[in-house]
């Protein structure tokens, strides 16, 4: 490869075609959005603990969001939860997570010089960037950003008369998500093509590291489901701006009788959740892949049941397309249809259980090295267990009647998806930081960051199950209007305490991250003694990844502590011995 033309600042750092640089762009944008989203949650948690009071945190907000006595306006509370959800689900855990690790790891782990199309890859980032600008801009429009929940159900999201955020803010939300979808489709297609076509010699699909498998299924899910969200959004744009009635019918608002007849808001829900449920696995699968990789490496042991791990990913990915109705049990759907969705939903628990057991079996008789990445990976398994189990309650339509849309759901999905994915992402950053920046992150700060985060995160989300079982609906500005919830204020205070503390301790991570980029100790080529290909590249970032020939793969990715070898790891490039079997 001799395309080492001279790189200028612009081609190297801004309009870069190099997958490693694009990955870092996704990571930094994702981290920035994570901070914005986290700050929003800190603010609405303060409102929930001290309803109707003022707080210095409100100084971060546009002044017209605050009323005369200094309290947050109720519709702006909804604006905050809406933007928080949108940012975390799409910007941080979809683009931030997949964008970073798919871009970074796919070429490096399959032995490719770059993505199939560097240019499309660059476009994918810049669409995402444009989406980010529009979304942030929407926060500052006078009527406020979208406020109908991240699920933007019409008619609420369609009618500016119903909530101020459904005006310009909602328009910008739809523009932003459209740009976002274009970006993620470009990225996703690229990931799929790259994995299928650019694997180096010897890298059969059976030898792919689990990260790549997970990113592969994730990309397929995205490519199949995001277009549905796009059409769902387009129809909403038509209803909002061009007077159509796809989702609207029989509406009187502010004394005005609307002309729309024949549409159905339920149609929107079907379209939305046809993406929405696969989306939660688009978020989770990369984290599970990263976790598998890190657990195997640091257990110094092969991942247990590689085939079952791939098979269960496949089963989860497939099932995730036929369960969306479990978000709609209470829409008045035909009870028989509800039964079908209960059945398919509960089936997902089987491959999920297999994954958990295989993780445990990997740890059994291991020789665990507790890097900060390993701590986060183990925590991912813990949250996946805790949150997956409550899914059994929500997936059971009869039980969902009384917990649907309560804090029980909020607890469930934050633990199983939010925490698992955030932990997976942090684990990935700690693990591949040396590869990204050529330096090490500080270990002790990593330890402190992990334990404080672990404590605070469960402190925030576990108690929410009890709020939900007490009947408390989600998306309430305050629960003080109902005497039946008077006993819950203690729980709310506890949650807010942990939420604020949990937000603050992320400072440790940010410090460690940025300090180490510039000042961290230099790393060696393979600091974790890993078997996978990315650790055979030079420490210095070069365009094309390997200076000479591409490496050739001779074995699977998990030969840790293999009998017959001196070292406790055998890189994928090492020739099989006479008579030695590849697993």
């Amino acid at each position, binding site marked *: 490869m001799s395309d080492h033309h001279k790189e200028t600042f612009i081609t190297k750092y801004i309009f870069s075609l190099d997958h490693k640089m694009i990955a870092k762009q996704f990571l930094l944008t994702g981290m920035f959005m994570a901070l914005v989203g986290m700050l929003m949650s800190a603010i609405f948690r303060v409102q929930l603990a*001290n309803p109707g009071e003022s707080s210095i945190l409100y100084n971060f907000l546009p002044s017209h969001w605050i009323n005369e006595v200094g309290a947050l306006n109720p519709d702006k509370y909804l604006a905050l939860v809406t933007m928080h959800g949108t940012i975390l689900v799409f910007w941080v855990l979809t683009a931030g997570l997949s964008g970073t690790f798919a871009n970074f790891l796919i070429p490096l782990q399959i032995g490719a010089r770059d993505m199939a199309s560097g240019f499309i890859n660059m476009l994918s980032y810049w669409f995402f960037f444009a989406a980010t600008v529009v979304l942030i801009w929407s926060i500052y429009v006078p009527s406020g950003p979208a406020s109908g929940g991240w699920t933007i159900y019409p008619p609420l999201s369609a009618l500016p008369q119903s909530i101020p955020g459904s005006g310009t803010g909602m328009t910008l939300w739809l523009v932003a998500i459209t740009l976002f979808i274009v970006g993620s489709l470009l990225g996703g297609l690229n990931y799929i093509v790259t994995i299928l076509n650019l694997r180096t010699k010897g890298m059969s699909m059976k030898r792919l590291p689990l990260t790549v498998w997970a990113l592969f299924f994730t990309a397929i899910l995205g490519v199949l489901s995001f277009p549905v969200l796009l059409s769902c959004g387009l129809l909403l744009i038509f209803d909002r701006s061009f007077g159509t009635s796809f989702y609207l019918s029989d509406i009187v608002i502010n004394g005005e009788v609307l002309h729309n007849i*024949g549409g159905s808001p339920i149609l929107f829900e079907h379209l939305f959740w046809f993406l929405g449920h696969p989306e939660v696995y688009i978020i989770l699968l990369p984290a599970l892949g990263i976790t598998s990789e890190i657990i195997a490496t640091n257990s110094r042991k092969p991942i247990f049941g590689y085939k079952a791990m791939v098979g269960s990913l496949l089963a989860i990915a497939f099932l995730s397309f036929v369960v969306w109705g479990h978000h709609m049990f209470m829409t008045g759907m035909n009870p028989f249809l*509800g039964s079908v969705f209960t059945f398919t939903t509960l089936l997902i628990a089987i491959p999920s259980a297999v994954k*958990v057991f295989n993780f445990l079996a990997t740890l059994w008789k291991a020789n665990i090295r507790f890097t900060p990445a390993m701590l986060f990976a183990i925590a991912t398994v813990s949250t996946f267990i805790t949150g997956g189990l409550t899914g059994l309650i929500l997936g059971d339509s009869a039980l969902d009647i009384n917990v649907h849309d309560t804090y029980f759901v909020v607890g469930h999905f934050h633990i199983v998806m939010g925490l698992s994915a955030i932990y997976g992402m942090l684990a990935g950053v700690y693990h591949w930081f040396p590869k990204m920046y050529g330096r090490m992150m500080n270990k002790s700060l990593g330890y402190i960051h992990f334990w404080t985060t672990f404590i605070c995160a469960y402190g925030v989300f576990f108690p929410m199950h009890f709020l939900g079982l007490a009947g408390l609906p989600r998306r309430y*500005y305050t629960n003080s*209007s109902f005497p039946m919830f008077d006993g819950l204020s203690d729980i709310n205070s506890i949650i807010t305490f942990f939420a604020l503390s949990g937000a603050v301790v992320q400072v440790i991570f940010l410090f460690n991250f940025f300090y180490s980029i510039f000042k961290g100790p230099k790393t060696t080529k393979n600091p974790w003694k890993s078997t996978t290909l990315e650790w055979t590249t030079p420490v210095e970032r070069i365009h094309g990844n390997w200076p000479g020939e591409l490496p050739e793969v001779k074995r699977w990715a998990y030969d840790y502590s293999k009998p017959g070898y001196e070292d406790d790891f055998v890189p994928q490039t090492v020739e099989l011995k006479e008579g030695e079997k590849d697993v």
Partner: protein
Amino acid sequence: MANVLIPLIIILAIVALVQITRVSELLGELKKIDVNNVTEEDNNTQGFLFVVIGGAFLIFVVWQMLEWNHLLLPPASSMHGEQIDALMQFTMGLILVAFFLLTPILFYFAYKYRGRKDNRAYYYPHNNKLELIWTVVPTIILTGVIIYGLKTWDSVMNVDTSDAHEIEVYSKQFQWLAREAGEDKVLGASNFKLIDATNNLGVDMEDPNSLDDKVVREVHLVVDKPVLLKFRSQDVIHSAFLPHFRVQMNCVPGLSTQFAFTPTQTTKEMKIQEGEDFDYVLLCNKICGAAHYNMQMKFVVETQEEYDAWIASQKTLDEKLLTQK
């Protein structure tokens, strides 16, 4: 204020920690050791922390279950609700067992198999028999859960409503209203185009069935008598949530939805059990706008005589609209 002070204190603590870590790193440099290398001592500490902090998490969970149990909803006040509660107990029991089994195993393994220099991990890439077992066992258990769940769902949703007392529950930003069918037991027709300041529900007064309908601001139910709630919405999606009865159904503009159930406890009985302040209440459980958090309507469960007296005191639509004209 405490909410702000506490994080501030934490920030200061962090700054201090950062300083300490820097110093240790400098010392490491002086002594020429790599402070980022994971040592056997680190493995011991972190493994130990998994047992201690992981254990503390489990204790925290148990503590919550004991401490907050009294805050949870009381047993269901409806017939189908009792079935739901039974299914809930079964499922919750099951997931608690799984949780208290798997979580300690995870943390214990982390501790038990913490790395030592002279140790080597056991090369154990797969075991088809084991994997088959832990695919089949969850499948069997889940089959049970699914069958039990679907049976309950079926008996909750598919009920004979022919002799149920019909009430319309009507939602709009940010208020609930209800309509009783009156003497003729038939709700008059309605049309959203007829909605105005006096005719809140858009009831069609040309329909003779409408004349004796009664629009009310709280709903009264007769204990042990089946009721069929029919839901409509005027503007956006709302969700009618009656947690004490284990009832929830979305109210969707342009669509008619319903839920049938039989209340089993009068408000008076509940007040004795739960305290004088107790009232059944209908909440909105689908984000619907700024005052979503305060959209409520009282439900009262009482005896037939009490109900008869109450309904007689309510005006029919015919009377109401006449006085307004």
